[in-house]
């Protein structure tokens, strides 16, 4: 179990982590989701005792990260963002080196090494120098190394960064199997929504060093309310916005209507979309003021969740800014999130 209490990290005048409080339970997969520079890696480094926090503390497996760093290190495995194996050595030699550094008992060393090699599927390449490995293989070797000493907590910092989609899927499978087979607690950072959605039991959304939302992916998505019907309307036709709004909102299953007349896009948040879609189409046809060109039905993604919380965060932040006379400009904030909107 990991308990993070009132954790702060400041570099000069920049606050990288701002009052972080998180509890991660045993055998949980916990995701830290946020854009680059949000403080995810710093938090992981602090928990792994590589950096000292400015204030506050945390316990990992019952050991305090400041008072018992050595015990913390023995009980965790960590996979860094960039591969950190020695590429002059073979995969096997890298694992051997770390089994010695982690004081894996002599009689268990070879057994553990072959176990983890098998787990990540590198057994037949174990004697090749790491420089001959592909990016995905290097990542898997790092994971094998992280598991070598049977840690109860594993940190994965951006486990699929820079991997192609198919390697990423393979990696997800490994991670899932790992959690099942090895009974570990997993903390992973990512800026891929679908990754957090697929792997995590709970997600903490982190931005500018603050946790702005924390819940299970399902809860976070349900918080948005219902499913989404996305329609494309014929552009040249006259669209009577008020009429459509009024008619749709009369239905009790419609929660929210979002019509952009310029783009000709219509977003309707509804309950039980697949059954209510025909009714909606009928209403739209009857208005005679528009023509539906395409319909898409989807559940809200974490993407939507992210945008919602990020937006709320901006509004709140701006309120603060007025009071504190903080010069930190919020300009470019949405641009930073634009990358999520495009996916």
């Amino acid at each position, binding site marked *: 179990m990991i308990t993070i209490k009132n954790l702060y990290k400041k570099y000069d005048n920049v606050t990288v982590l701002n009052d972080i409080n998180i509890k991660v339970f045993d055998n949980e997969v916990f995701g830290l989701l946020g854009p680059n520079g949000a403080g995810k890696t710093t938090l992981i480094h602090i928990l792994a005792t590589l950096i000292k926090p400015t204030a506050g503390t945390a316990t990992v497996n019952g050991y305090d990260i400041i008072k018992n760093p050595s015990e913390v290190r023995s009980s965790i495995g960590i996979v860094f963002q960039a591969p950190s194996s020695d590429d002059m050595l073979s995969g096997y030699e890298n694992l051997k*080196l770390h089994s*010695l*550094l*982690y*004081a894996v008992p002599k009689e268990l060393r070879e057994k553990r090494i072959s176990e983890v090699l098998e787990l990540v599927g590198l057994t037949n390449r174990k004697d090749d120098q790491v420089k001959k490995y592909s990016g995905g293989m290097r990542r898997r070797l790092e994971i094998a190394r992280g598991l070598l000493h049977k840690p109860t907590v594993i940190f994965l910092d951006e486990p699929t960064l820079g991997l192609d989609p198919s390697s990423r899927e393979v990696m997800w499978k490994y991670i899932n199997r790992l959690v099942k087979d090895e009974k570990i607690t997993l903390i992973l950072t990512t800026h891929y929504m679908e990754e957090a959605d697929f792997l995590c039991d709970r997600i903490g959304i982190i931005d500018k060093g603050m946790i702005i939302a924390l819940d299970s992916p399902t809860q976070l998505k349900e918080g948005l309310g219902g499913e989404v019907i996305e329609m494309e309307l014929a552009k040249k036709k006259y669209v009577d916005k008020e009429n459509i709004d009024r008619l749709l909102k009369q239905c009790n299953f419609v929660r929210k209507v979002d019509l952009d007349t310029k783009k000709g896009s219509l977003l309707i948040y509804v309950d039980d979309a697949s059954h209510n879609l025909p009714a909606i189409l009928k209403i739209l046809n009857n208005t005679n003021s528009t023509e539906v060109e395409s319909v898409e039905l989807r559940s809200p993604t974490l993407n939507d969740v992210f945008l919602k919380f990020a937006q709320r965060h901006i509004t709140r932040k701006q309120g603060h800014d007025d009071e504190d006379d903080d010069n930190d400009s919020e300009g470019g904030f949405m641009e930073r999130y634009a990358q999520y909107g495009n996916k």
Partner: protein
Amino acid sequence: MMIMILKGGLWKDMLNMETNNKWIELELVKLYAIWLREFKVFLREKSRLIASTFTPLLWLFVIGEGFGATTDLFGTARFAADTNIGYQQFIFPGIICMSVIFTSVFFGSYIIWDRKFDFLKSVMVAPVSRTTIFLGKAFGGMTTSLIQAAILLIVGFVIGIHYTPLSMVFIVIIILLLSFTLTSLGLTLGSHMESLEGFQLIVSFVVFPLFFLSGALFPLDNLPTWLSILTTLDPVTYAVGALREVMLGITGINSFAMNIGVLLLSAVSLGTVGVLSFRRMRAV
């Protein structure tokens, strides 16, 4: 001494002998692991081995033969007695030290690469004391320096250097002391540097001055005061002096005991500075 360094001031643990012994045993295994990694990488990087053997040979044969043919350094009383020693033989101990300087200082500062490729981070996040990491690296540097020097020592036969079993023992001890000192220096410098750009500074401001000021290429007897002061401050001076005495029987301006004493002192002090630097070094 060794145990004290390893324990790194955790005095309270020393009261508990049993856990203490176990702890030392585990740290020694970790030290071996770090040393072994350095040794394996050294064996695989053949270009490094070839390059650092070639330069000293170039000096020994081109400068040695070239200057030896025209320079009469040995008109002074000190050398007149033994006419067998030519300039080439005279600089041979200095060339050995040159090889040790290059290998050790570069080896130490290669830690910048370890950091660049995140390997260092993976070692630092393991439950290994910084002192152990330092000593593992230092021993790695000593091993590589000794292998490099051994190749040159064999070349020594060709230019007529005579070895005795006793002189061999001294030669090895001197080389190990010097390489520990200089690897520590390299590791200390490397631990303070963030970027690879600093590497060139080390070459210009550390490696070459250490070599040129050591009296590797000239006797120290009649130097102007400013140069004499600088040679006194260079630890390599004492290694060159000591090697010259055991290889060629030439006593320089310092006695053998003095040379060994200063070398020991430099090894201990630079080793301590290195351990302290490693403890303070930022992991990320």
